[in-house]
Protein backbone atom coordinates (compact mmCIF):
# COMPACT_ATOMS: atom_id res chain seq x y z
CA UNK A 1 0.00 0.00 0.00
CA UNK A 2 1.38 3.35 -1.03
CA UNK A 3 0.67 5.52 1.98
CA UNK A 4 0.96 8.73 0.00
CA UNK A 5 -2.00 7.63 -2.09
CA UNK A 6 -4.24 7.75 0.96
CA UNK A 7 -4.98 11.42 0.62
CA UNK A 8 -8.34 11.55 2.37
CA UNK A 9 -9.65 10.49 5.75
CA UNK A 10 -12.18 8.22 4.03
CA UNK A 11 -9.39 6.43 2.15
CA UNK A 12 -7.34 6.05 5.30
CA UNK A 13 -10.34 4.69 7.19
CA UNK A 14 -11.06 2.17 4.43
CA UNK A 15 -7.44 1.03 4.21
CA UNK A 16 -7.28 0.54 7.98
CA UNK A 17 -10.52 -1.40 7.87
CA UNK A 18 -9.34 -3.70 5.08
CA UNK A 19 -6.02 -4.33 6.79
CA UNK A 20 -4.03 -2.79 3.94
CA UNK A 21 -2.30 -0.52 6.45
CA UNK A 22 -1.94 -0.30 10.18
CA UNK A 23 -2.37 2.73 12.41
CA UNK A 24 1.31 2.67 13.24
CA UNK A 25 2.25 2.78 9.53
CA UNK A 26 -0.15 5.64 8.97
CA UNK A 27 1.15 7.50 11.99
CA UNK A 28 4.84 7.03 11.19
CA UNK A 29 4.14 8.29 7.69
CA UNK A 30 2.40 11.36 9.15
CA UNK A 31 5.31 12.00 11.51
CA UNK A 32 7.72 11.70 8.57
CA UNK A 33 5.69 14.23 6.57
CA UNK A 34 5.59 16.58 9.56
CA UNK A 35 9.40 16.42 9.76
CA UNK A 36 9.79 16.85 6.02
CA UNK A 37 7.52 19.90 6.08
CA UNK A 38 8.81 21.42 9.31
CA UNK A 39 9.63 24.62 7.38
CA UNK A 40 5.86 25.23 7.18
CA UNK A 41 5.83 25.75 10.98
CA UNK A 42 2.51 23.96 11.39
CA UNK A 43 2.88 22.52 14.87
CA UNK A 44 3.41 24.21 18.19
CA UNK A 45 3.64 20.82 19.91
CA UNK A 46 4.01 17.29 18.57
CA UNK A 47 4.89 14.47 20.98
CA UNK A 48 6.10 11.61 18.80
CA UNK A 49 6.19 9.02 21.58
CA UNK A 50 2.65 9.86 22.62
CA UNK A 51 1.39 9.66 19.03
CA UNK A 52 3.12 6.33 18.43
CA UNK A 53 1.69 4.93 21.67
CA UNK A 54 -1.83 5.92 20.55
CA UNK A 55 -1.27 4.23 17.18
CA UNK A 56 -0.05 1.02 18.79
CA UNK A 57 -3.09 0.98 21.06
CA UNK A 58 -5.34 1.40 18.03
CA UNK A 59 -3.68 -1.49 16.21
CA UNK A 60 -4.09 -3.61 19.33
CA UNK A 61 -7.82 -2.82 19.45
CA UNK A 62 -8.17 -3.73 15.80
CA UNK A 63 -6.36 -7.04 16.29
CA UNK A 64 -8.69 -7.97 19.12
CA UNK A 65 -11.81 -6.91 17.20
CA UNK A 66 -12.52 -3.96 19.47
CA UNK A 67 -12.18 -0.95 17.23
CA UNK A 68 -14.05 2.04 18.52
CA UNK A 69 -15.23 3.62 15.25
CA UNK A 70 -14.33 3.96 11.58
CA UNK A 71 -11.85 6.72 12.44
CA UNK A 72 -10.01 4.53 14.96
CA UNK A 73 -6.31 4.89 14.13
CA UNK A 74 -6.63 8.01 11.97
CA UNK A 75 -4.33 10.91 12.99
CA UNK A 76 -6.14 14.22 13.54
CA UNK A 77 -4.35 17.48 14.39
CA UNK A 78 -5.73 19.87 17.01
CA UNK A 79 -5.66 23.66 17.00
CA UNK A 80 -3.83 24.97 20.04
CA UNK A 81 -6.92 26.58 21.56
CA UNK A 82 -8.61 23.22 22.22
CA UNK A 83 -7.79 21.83 25.65
CA UNK A 84 -6.02 18.50 25.42
CA UNK A 85 -5.08 16.36 28.38
CA UNK A 86 -1.79 15.22 26.89
CA UNK A 87 -0.57 18.57 25.54
CA UNK A 88 -0.22 22.05 26.95
CA UNK A 89 -2.69 24.54 25.51
CA UNK A 90 -1.19 27.96 24.88
CA UNK A 91 -3.29 29.57 22.11
CA UNK A 92 0.16 30.48 20.72
CA UNK A 93 0.39 33.28 23.28
CA UNK A 94 3.05 34.17 25.82
CA UNK A 95 0.27 35.39 28.12
CA UNK A 96 -1.50 32.06 28.37
CA UNK A 97 -1.89 30.80 31.93
CA UNK A 98 -3.33 27.47 30.82
CA UNK A 99 -0.24 25.45 30.03
CA UNK A 100 -0.81 22.86 32.70
CA UNK A 101 -4.56 22.48 32.43
CA UNK A 102 -4.99 18.75 31.84
CA UNK A 103 -8.40 18.21 30.27
CA UNK A 104 -9.93 17.47 26.88
CA UNK A 105 -12.33 19.78 25.12
CA UNK A 106 -15.60 17.95 24.44
CA UNK A 107 -14.78 17.52 20.75
CA UNK A 108 -11.28 16.24 21.50
CA UNK A 109 -12.81 13.80 24.01
CA UNK A 110 -15.32 12.66 21.37
CA UNK A 111 -12.52 11.98 18.88
CA UNK A 112 -10.33 10.29 21.46
CA UNK A 113 -13.26 8.04 22.48
CA UNK A 114 -13.61 7.09 18.82
CA UNK A 115 -9.97 6.01 18.72
CA UNK A 116 -8.66 8.88 16.60
CA UNK A 117 -5.00 9.65 17.16
CA UNK A 118 -4.64 13.08 18.73
CA UNK A 119 -1.76 14.26 16.58
CA UNK A 120 -0.16 17.38 18.02
CA UNK A 121 -1.24 20.98 18.47
CA UNK A 122 -1.23 23.37 15.54
CA UNK A 123 -0.01 26.91 15.04
CA UNK A 124 -2.61 29.68 15.22
CA UNK A 125 -2.96 33.42 15.58
CA UNK A 126 -2.46 34.47 19.20
CA UNK A 127 -5.73 33.76 21.06
CA UNK A 128 -7.36 33.38 17.58
CA UNK A 129 -7.67 37.16 17.35
CA UNK A 130 -6.42 37.64 13.80
CA UNK A 131 -6.84 36.05 10.40
CA UNK A 132 -3.40 35.66 8.82
CA UNK A 133 -1.56 33.27 11.20
CA UNK A 134 1.31 35.75 11.32
CA UNK A 135 0.52 36.99 14.84
CA UNK A 136 1.72 33.98 16.79
CA UNK A 137 4.45 33.46 19.37
CA UNK A 138 6.11 30.73 17.27
CA UNK A 139 6.25 32.63 13.98
CA UNK A 140 3.93 32.40 10.99
CA UNK A 141 2.65 29.16 9.54
CA UNK A 142 3.54 28.91 5.84
CA UNK A 143 1.25 28.01 2.98
CA UNK A 144 2.05 24.54 1.55
CA UNK A 145 1.05 25.71 -1.93
CA UNK A 146 3.68 28.44 -1.79
CA UNK A 147 5.59 28.92 1.48
CA UNK A 148 6.16 32.61 0.76
CA UNK A 149 2.45 33.14 1.29
CA UNK A 150 0.32 33.18 4.41
CA UNK A 151 -1.87 30.25 5.39
CA UNK A 152 -4.58 32.59 6.54
CA UNK A 153 -5.82 32.25 10.08
CA UNK A 154 -6.45 31.86 12.74
CA UNK A 155 -6.42 28.07 12.23
CA UNK A 156 -3.46 28.29 9.84
CA UNK A 157 -1.44 25.40 11.25
CA UNK A 158 -4.45 23.08 10.96
CA UNK A 159 -5.08 24.02 7.33
CA UNK A 160 -1.39 23.68 6.45
CA UNK A 161 -1.24 20.27 8.14
CA UNK A 162 -4.12 19.08 5.95
CA UNK A 163 -2.90 20.76 2.75
CA UNK A 164 0.59 19.31 3.12
CA UNK A 165 -0.87 15.82 3.65
CA UNK A 166 0.47 15.34 7.18
CA UNK A 167 -3.08 14.66 8.35
CA UNK A 168 -6.35 14.40 6.46
CA UNK A 169 -8.36 16.26 9.10
CA UNK A 170 -7.67 18.87 11.74
CA UNK A 171 -9.64 20.90 14.24
CA UNK A 172 -10.21 24.62 13.86
CA UNK A 173 -12.33 27.30 15.45
CA UNK A 174 -14.10 30.14 13.67
CA UNK A 175 -15.18 33.55 14.99
CA UNK A 176 -14.92 35.61 11.80
CA UNK A 177 -13.73 32.97 9.35
CA UNK A 178 -10.85 31.27 11.16
CA UNK A 179 -11.66 27.82 9.77
CA UNK A 180 -12.73 28.94 6.30
CA UNK A 181 -10.02 31.54 5.68
CA UNK A 182 -7.03 29.18 6.05
CA UNK A 183 -8.89 26.30 4.42
CA UNK A 184 -9.49 28.53 1.38
CA UNK A 185 -6.00 30.02 1.37
CA UNK A 186 -4.46 26.54 1.45
CA UNK A 187 -6.92 24.91 -0.98
CA UNK A 188 -8.64 22.47 1.37
CA UNK A 189 -12.16 22.11 2.80
CA UNK A 190 -13.58 23.62 5.97
CA UNK A 191 -16.90 23.64 7.79
CA UNK A 192 -18.31 25.97 10.44
CA UNK A 193 -21.42 24.44 12.02
CA UNK A 194 -24.53 26.42 12.93
CA UNK A 195 -23.86 28.35 16.14
CA UNK A 196 -25.20 26.22 18.98
CA UNK A 197 -24.85 22.84 17.28
CA UNK A 198 -21.18 22.19 18.14
CA UNK A 199 -19.89 22.27 21.68
CA UNK A 200 -17.45 25.04 22.53
CA UNK A 201 -16.62 23.45 25.86
CA UNK A 202 -12.86 23.39 26.31
CA UNK A 203 -12.17 25.61 23.31
CA UNK A 204 -10.59 28.85 24.52
CA UNK A 205 -13.03 31.59 23.56
CA UNK A 206 -12.43 34.62 21.42
CA UNK A 207 -16.06 35.81 21.33
CA UNK A 208 -18.67 33.57 22.99
CA UNK A 209 -21.60 34.48 20.78
CA UNK A 210 -19.65 34.14 17.53
CA UNK A 211 -17.24 31.23 18.14
CA UNK A 212 -17.83 27.92 16.47
CA UNK A 213 -15.56 24.88 16.46
CA UNK A 214 -15.32 22.88 13.25
CA UNK A 215 -13.16 20.70 11.02
CA UNK A 216 -10.73 21.31 8.16
CA UNK A 217 -10.29 18.27 5.93
CA UNK A 218 -9.07 16.87 2.63
CA UNK A 219 -12.51 16.45 1.06
CA UNK A 220 -16.19 17.15 1.59
CA UNK A 221 -16.72 13.46 2.34
CA UNK A 222 -14.08 13.73 5.07
CA UNK A 223 -15.98 16.65 6.58
CA UNK A 224 -19.11 14.48 6.61
CA UNK A 225 -17.24 11.68 8.34
CA UNK A 226 -15.87 13.87 11.11
CA UNK A 227 -18.78 16.27 11.70
CA UNK A 228 -20.79 13.83 13.85
CA UNK A 229 -18.05 14.20 16.48
CA UNK A 230 -18.67 17.96 16.57
CA UNK A 231 -22.44 18.20 16.40
CA UNK A 232 -24.94 17.48 19.16
CA UNK A 233 -25.92 18.36 22.70
CA UNK A 234 -23.27 18.82 25.35
CA UNK A 235 -24.37 19.58 28.88
CA UNK A 236 -21.13 21.50 29.37
CA UNK A 237 -22.13 24.06 26.71
CA UNK A 238 -25.65 25.36 27.26
CA UNK A 239 -25.84 26.88 23.78
CA UNK A 240 -26.09 23.30 22.48
CA UNK A 241 -29.19 22.56 24.59
CA UNK A 242 -31.41 22.34 21.50
CA UNK A 243 -28.78 20.82 19.22
CA UNK A 244 -29.82 17.85 17.15
CA UNK A 245 -27.26 15.13 16.52
CA UNK A 246 -25.85 14.78 13.02
CA UNK A 247 -28.25 13.14 10.56
CA UNK A 248 -27.33 12.37 6.96
CA UNK A 249 -29.49 14.43 4.63
CA UNK A 250 -30.45 13.79 1.02
CA UNK A 251 -30.00 16.74 -1.31
CA UNK A 252 -33.10 18.22 -2.86
CA UNK A 253 -32.98 19.50 -6.43
CA UNK A 254 -32.88 21.95 -7.98
CA UNK A 255 -30.62 23.93 -5.69
CA UNK A 256 -31.41 27.61 -5.37
CA UNK A 257 -28.40 29.80 -4.66
CA UNK A 258 -28.28 33.52 -3.96
CA UNK A 259 -24.90 34.96 -4.94
CA UNK A 260 -24.21 37.97 -2.73
CA UNK A 261 -22.09 40.69 -4.31
CA UNK A 262 -21.91 44.46 -4.65
CA UNK A 263 -20.87 47.24 -2.29
CA UNK A 264 -19.20 45.98 0.86
CA UNK A 265 -18.78 42.49 -0.61
CA UNK A 266 -16.22 43.31 -3.29
CA UNK A 267 -13.60 40.85 -4.51
CA UNK A 268 -10.87 41.11 -7.13
CA UNK A 269 -11.64 40.42 -10.76
CA UNK A 270 -9.77 37.14 -10.99
CA UNK A 271 -11.53 35.69 -7.94
CA UNK A 272 -14.89 36.92 -9.20
CA UNK A 273 -14.33 35.35 -12.60
CA UNK A 274 -13.36 31.97 -11.16
CA UNK A 275 -16.32 31.95 -8.76
CA UNK A 276 -18.81 32.93 -11.46
CA UNK A 277 -17.26 30.33 -13.77
CA UNK A 278 -17.80 27.67 -11.14
CA UNK A 279 -21.39 28.72 -10.50
CA UNK A 280 -22.19 28.68 -14.21
CA UNK A 281 -21.05 25.05 -14.47
CA UNK A 282 -23.33 23.84 -11.70
CA UNK A 283 -26.93 22.81 -12.20
CA UNK A 284 -28.08 25.24 -9.50
CA UNK A 285 -30.39 28.20 -10.07
CA UNK A 286 -28.23 31.19 -9.23
CA UNK A 287 -29.54 34.66 -8.55
CA UNK A 288 -27.32 37.69 -7.87
CA UNK A 289 -28.22 39.99 -4.99
CA UNK A 290 -26.61 42.77 -3.00
CA UNK A 291 -26.54 43.32 0.75
CA UNK A 292 -26.93 47.09 1.25
CA UNK A 293 -25.64 47.34 4.83
CA UNK A 294 -22.72 44.93 4.44
CA UNK A 295 -20.16 47.39 5.81
CA UNK A 296 -22.38 48.20 8.77
CA UNK A 297 -22.82 44.52 9.54
CA UNK A 298 -19.05 44.15 9.50
CA UNK A 299 -18.79 46.93 12.07
CA UNK A 300 -21.39 45.12 14.19
CA UNK A 301 -19.37 41.92 13.98
CA UNK A 302 -16.25 43.84 15.02
CA UNK A 303 -17.99 45.53 17.96
CA UNK A 304 -19.24 42.19 19.30
CA UNK A 305 -15.90 40.44 18.77
CA UNK A 306 -13.79 43.18 20.32
CA UNK A 307 -16.05 43.69 23.34
CA UNK A 308 -16.51 40.00 24.12
CA UNK A 309 -12.79 39.28 23.65
CA UNK A 310 -11.88 42.21 25.89
CA UNK A 311 -14.14 40.98 28.66
CA UNK A 312 -12.73 37.45 28.44
CA UNK A 313 -9.16 38.79 28.63
CA UNK A 314 -9.80 41.60 31.14
CA UNK A 315 -8.23 39.94 34.16
CA UNK A 316 -5.24 38.47 32.36
CA UNK A 317 -4.67 41.71 30.49
CA UNK A 318 -4.54 43.61 33.79
CA UNK A 319 -2.19 41.04 35.32
CA UNK A 320 0.12 40.51 32.38
CA UNK A 321 -0.29 43.12 29.64
CA UNK A 322 3.21 42.51 28.34
CA UNK A 323 2.34 38.86 27.72
CA UNK A 324 0.25 39.98 24.76
CA UNK A 325 1.70 41.03 21.41
CA UNK A 326 1.52 44.85 21.09
CA UNK A 327 -1.18 44.80 18.40
CA UNK A 328 -3.35 42.33 20.31
CA UNK A 329 -2.96 44.36 23.50
CA UNK A 330 -4.17 47.43 21.60
CA UNK A 331 -7.13 45.52 20.14
CA UNK A 332 -8.18 44.36 23.61
CA UNK A 333 -7.82 47.89 25.01
CA UNK A 334 -10.02 49.13 22.14
CA UNK A 335 -12.71 46.60 23.01
CA UNK A 336 -12.73 47.89 26.60
CA UNK A 337 -13.72 51.32 25.33
CA UNK A 338 -16.87 50.31 23.46
CA UNK A 339 -19.99 51.31 25.37
CA UNK A 340 -22.90 49.02 26.27
CA UNK A 341 -25.13 51.06 23.96
CA UNK A 342 -22.74 50.54 21.07
CA UNK A 343 -22.58 46.81 21.67
CA UNK A 344 -26.38 46.59 21.88
CA UNK A 345 -26.64 48.51 18.63
CA UNK A 346 -24.30 45.92 17.12
CA UNK A 347 -26.64 43.18 18.40
CA UNK A 348 -29.54 45.02 16.77
CA UNK A 349 -27.72 45.04 13.46
CA UNK A 350 -27.10 41.34 13.93
CA UNK A 351 -30.83 40.68 14.29
CA UNK A 352 -31.49 42.96 11.32
CA UNK A 353 -29.07 41.02 9.14
CA UNK A 354 -30.80 37.73 9.96
CA UNK A 355 -34.20 39.23 9.29
CA UNK A 356 -33.02 40.54 5.92
CA UNK A 357 -31.37 37.29 4.84
CA UNK A 358 -34.30 35.13 5.88
CA UNK A 359 -37.00 37.32 4.36
CA UNK A 360 -35.71 39.32 1.42
CA UNK A 361 -34.06 36.80 -0.89
CA UNK A 362 -36.82 34.27 -1.48
CA UNK A 363 -36.70 30.60 -0.73
CA UNK A 364 -32.94 30.05 -1.03
CA UNK A 365 -31.07 26.89 -0.15
CA UNK A 366 -27.68 28.56 0.22
CA UNK A 367 -26.06 31.96 0.00
CA UNK A 368 -22.83 31.94 -1.96
CA UNK A 369 -19.76 34.18 -1.97
CA UNK A 370 -16.06 33.75 -2.58
CA UNK A 371 -14.48 32.68 0.71
CA UNK A 372 -11.75 35.30 0.27
CA UNK A 373 -11.79 38.41 -1.92
CA UNK A 374 -8.16 37.77 -2.95
CA UNK A 375 -5.79 34.80 -3.04
CA UNK A 376 -3.42 34.28 -0.10
CA UNK A 377 -1.11 37.31 0.16
CA UNK A 378 2.62 37.04 0.89
CA UNK A 379 3.89 36.78 4.44
CA UNK A 380 4.75 40.26 5.71
CA UNK A 381 2.53 42.02 3.21
CA UNK A 382 0.66 44.87 4.90
CA UNK A 383 -2.05 45.70 2.38
CA UNK A 384 -3.99 44.16 -0.46
CA UNK A 385 -5.78 46.01 -3.22
CA UNK A 386 -9.06 44.92 -4.73
CA UNK A 387 -12.08 46.70 -6.16
CA UNK A 388 -10.08 49.91 -6.29
CA UNK A 389 -9.41 50.00 -2.57
CA UNK A 390 -6.47 49.33 -0.31
CA UNK A 391 -7.31 47.12 2.67
CA UNK A 392 -5.19 45.79 5.51
CA UNK A 393 -4.53 42.07 5.37
CA UNK A 394 -6.62 41.00 8.36
CA UNK A 395 -9.69 42.95 7.24
CA UNK A 396 -9.31 41.53 3.73
CA UNK A 397 -9.26 37.98 5.09
CA UNK A 398 -12.41 38.60 7.16
CA UNK A 399 -14.12 40.64 4.43
CA UNK A 400 -16.78 38.09 3.49
CA UNK A 401 -16.41 35.31 6.07
CA UNK A 402 -17.70 37.32 9.05
CA UNK A 403 -21.25 36.91 7.68
CA UNK A 404 -21.20 33.25 8.70
CA UNK A 405 -20.52 34.17 12.32
CA UNK A 406 -22.73 37.21 12.66
CA UNK A 407 -25.64 35.10 11.39
CA UNK A 408 -24.57 31.86 13.06
CA UNK A 409 -25.37 30.08 9.80
CA UNK A 410 -23.65 26.81 8.86
CA UNK A 411 -20.94 27.51 6.33
CA UNK A 412 -18.70 25.39 4.14
CA UNK A 413 -15.74 26.36 1.98
CA UNK A 414 -14.51 24.40 -1.03
CA UNK A 415 -11.75 25.11 -3.54
CA UNK A 416 -13.07 25.75 -7.05
CA UNK A 417 -10.08 26.95 -9.04
CA UNK A 418 -6.62 28.46 -9.10
CA UNK A 419 -5.30 31.91 -9.83
CA UNK A 420 -2.70 32.62 -12.51
CA UNK A 421 -0.11 32.38 -9.74
CA UNK A 422 -1.31 28.88 -8.81
CA UNK A 423 -2.94 29.88 -5.54
CA UNK A 424 -6.36 28.45 -4.67
CA UNK A 425 -9.68 30.25 -5.03
CA UNK A 426 -12.59 28.96 -2.97
CA UNK A 427 -16.32 29.36 -2.72
CA UNK A 428 -18.25 29.65 0.53
CA UNK A 429 -21.82 28.43 0.94
CA UNK A 430 -23.98 29.56 3.85
CA UNK A 431 -26.85 27.21 4.60
CA UNK A 432 -30.09 27.70 6.47
CA UNK A 433 -29.81 27.63 10.28
CA UNK A 434 -29.57 24.15 11.71
CA UNK A 435 -29.42 22.59 8.24
CA UNK A 436 -25.74 21.70 8.37
CA UNK A 437 -26.25 18.27 6.84
CA UNK A 438 -28.26 19.65 3.92
CA UNK A 439 -25.56 22.25 3.32
CA UNK A 440 -22.85 19.63 3.12
CA UNK A 441 -24.92 17.47 0.76
CA UNK A 442 -25.46 20.53 -1.40
CA UNK A 443 -21.74 21.29 -1.47
CA UNK A 444 -21.06 17.70 -2.57
CA UNK A 445 -23.62 18.02 -5.35
CA UNK A 446 -22.17 21.33 -6.58
CA UNK A 447 -18.63 19.98 -6.30
CA UNK A 448 -19.47 17.39 -8.97
CA UNK A 449 -19.26 20.16 -11.54
CA UNK A 450 -15.55 20.55 -10.76
CA UNK A 451 -14.52 16.90 -10.78
Amino acid at each position, binding site marked *: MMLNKLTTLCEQSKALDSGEITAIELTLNALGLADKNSHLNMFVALDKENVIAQAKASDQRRKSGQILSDIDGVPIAIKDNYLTKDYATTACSNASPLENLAADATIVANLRSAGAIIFGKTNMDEWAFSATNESTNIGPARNPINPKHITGGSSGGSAAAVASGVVTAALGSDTGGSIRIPAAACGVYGFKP*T*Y*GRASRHGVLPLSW*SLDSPGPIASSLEDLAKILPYFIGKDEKDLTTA*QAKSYQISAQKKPIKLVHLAGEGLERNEEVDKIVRGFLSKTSADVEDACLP*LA*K*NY*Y*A*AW*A*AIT*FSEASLYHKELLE*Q*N*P*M*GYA*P*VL*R*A*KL*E*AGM*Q*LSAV*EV*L*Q*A*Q*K*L*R*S*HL*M*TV*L*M*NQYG*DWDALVLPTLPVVAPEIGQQWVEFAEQKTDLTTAMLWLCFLGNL*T*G*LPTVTLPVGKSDTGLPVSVMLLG*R*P*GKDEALLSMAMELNKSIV
Partner: protein
Amino acid sequence: MSDTVKPLDKEQHDLIEEILSDIRSKLWVNEDLSTIEPSNIFVPEVYDVK
Protein backbone atom coordinates in the same frame (compact mmCIF):
# COMPACT_ATOMS: atom_id res chain seq x y z
CA MET B 1 3.36 39.11 35.86
CA SER B 2 5.97 40.83 33.73
CA ASP B 3 8.60 42.77 35.65
CA THR B 4 8.16 45.91 33.58
CA VAL B 5 4.76 47.00 32.37
CA LYS B 6 5.19 49.55 29.61
CA PRO B 7 2.40 52.01 28.95
CA LEU B 8 0.76 51.86 25.54
CA ASP B 9 2.87 53.62 22.92
CA LYS B 10 1.74 56.02 20.20
CA GLU B 11 1.35 53.27 17.62
CA GLN B 12 -0.94 51.34 19.96
CA HIS B 13 -2.97 54.44 20.80
CA ASP B 14 -3.32 55.18 17.08
CA LEU B 15 -4.52 51.64 16.43
CA ILE B 16 -7.09 51.86 19.24
CA GLU B 17 -8.36 55.14 17.80
CA GLU B 18 -8.53 53.68 14.31
CA ILE B 19 -10.45 50.58 15.46
CA LEU B 20 -12.98 52.59 17.47
CA SER B 21 -13.42 55.21 14.81
CA ASP B 22 -14.00 52.57 12.13
CA ILE B 23 -16.60 50.71 14.23
CA ARG B 24 -18.39 53.86 15.44
CA SER B 25 -18.61 55.38 11.98
CA LYS B 26 -20.57 52.37 10.69
CA LEU B 27 -22.66 51.21 13.65
CA TRP B 28 -25.38 53.80 13.16
CA VAL B 29 -27.45 53.39 10.00
CA ASN B 30 -30.16 55.29 8.15
CA GLU B 31 -32.56 52.44 8.53
CA ASP B 32 -35.52 52.04 10.86
CA LEU B 33 -34.42 49.47 13.41
CA SER B 34 -37.07 50.45 15.97
CA THR B 35 -38.80 47.07 15.85
CA ILE B 36 -35.57 45.08 15.93
CA GLU B 37 -34.48 43.71 19.29
CA PRO B 38 -30.83 43.04 20.09
CA SER B 39 -29.92 39.35 19.87
CA ASN B 40 -28.25 38.90 23.22
CA ILE B 41 -28.99 35.20 23.32
CA PHE B 42 -28.40 34.16 19.78
CA VAL B 43 -30.36 31.22 18.35
CA PRO B 44 -30.09 31.27 14.55
CA GLU B 45 -32.93 28.79 14.00
CA VAL B 46 -35.60 31.16 15.34
CA TYR B 47 -35.13 33.43 12.35
CA ASP B 48 -35.87 30.73 9.78
CA VAL B 49 -39.40 31.04 8.51
CA LYS B 50 -38.96 28.71 5.53
